[in-house]
């Protein structure tokens, strides 16, 4: 069960590269076979100064996190059998591209408990992750809402 006492706590820090191979794999998995997402020549031909990033590319941080994508949910004590991903939102603050290495700092922004529809307690956890480039500048912010339904 999500522990409300964790609100405000830092979760983890992950350093990860935005490398061509994983970006090619991600674009293909997202049904977009255009080489512009991983090939510098194709990106240049399309008019880009460098290979552009897909909006959800920061998901690649999960490969560098012990426990993968589920690690943050487990770290806050969530019962995976009752857990739903409610929302995800990205704010693109500054340019970022292939070859950059980012540092992601995740924290528990808020935990809120509500009456569940069938009685019991529903818990909403808001996780915020800041992604910084090599110069220490925030380039992307991501916010996730996790919902633990009532028992």
């Amino acid at each position, binding site marked *: 069960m999500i522990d409300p006492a964790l609100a405000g706590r830092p979760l983890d820090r992950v350093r990860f590269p935005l490398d061509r191979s994983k970006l090619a794999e991600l674009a293909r*998995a997202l049904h977009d076979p255009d080489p512009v997402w991983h090939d510098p020549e194709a990106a240049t031909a399309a008019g880009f100064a460098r290979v552009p990033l*897909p*909006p959800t590319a920061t998901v*690649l941080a999960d490969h560098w996190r012990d426990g993968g*994508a*589920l690690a943050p949910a487990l770290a806050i004590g969530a019962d995976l059998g009752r857990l739903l991903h409610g*929302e*995800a939102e990205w704010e693109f603050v500054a340019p970022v591209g292939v070859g950059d290495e980012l540092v992601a700092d995740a924290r528990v922004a808020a935990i809120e408990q509500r009456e569940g529809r069938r009685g019991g307690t529903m818990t909403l956890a808001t996780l915020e992750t800041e992604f910084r480039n090599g110069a220490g500048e925030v380039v992307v912010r991501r916010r996730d809402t996790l919902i633990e339904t009532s028992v």
Partner: protein
Amino acid sequence: MSTLTIPVAPPRLAVGDTMPATTIGPLTRTDIVRYAGAGGDLNPIHHDEPMAQAAGFPSVFAMGMLPAGVLGQRVARWVGPENLRTFGVRFTGQVWPGDELTFSGAVAAVENGVARLELLVQSSTGGAVLRGWATTSIEVGP
């Protein structure tokens, strides 16, 4: 799809302009596994059929980040990846193997050089599975 030009500079957009609607599918278990490997989400509920059934589901189902990510690609192709300021999704329904997913969107508002987009992913079996929103820089001027 790859022959269409992706905007580099902020595009010219007006209220009511629409994203070209596209469809993928029927979604296969291979599509789900491919995203699990690419995105790093190895929750077994998305690839282990006996485990998913033991948990009470008819089969494995896609992680929400799969249709969210595809929607992100479609939006980025429409307005240009470097013009996007925000992108968000609310997961409203599950995506199952065999589903066909349709991605659509429209400009809901334009103000001060920024367009607000409303986005939708619909499945062939379950209606709206994802509602999205985004803001993008747009070309300003006559």
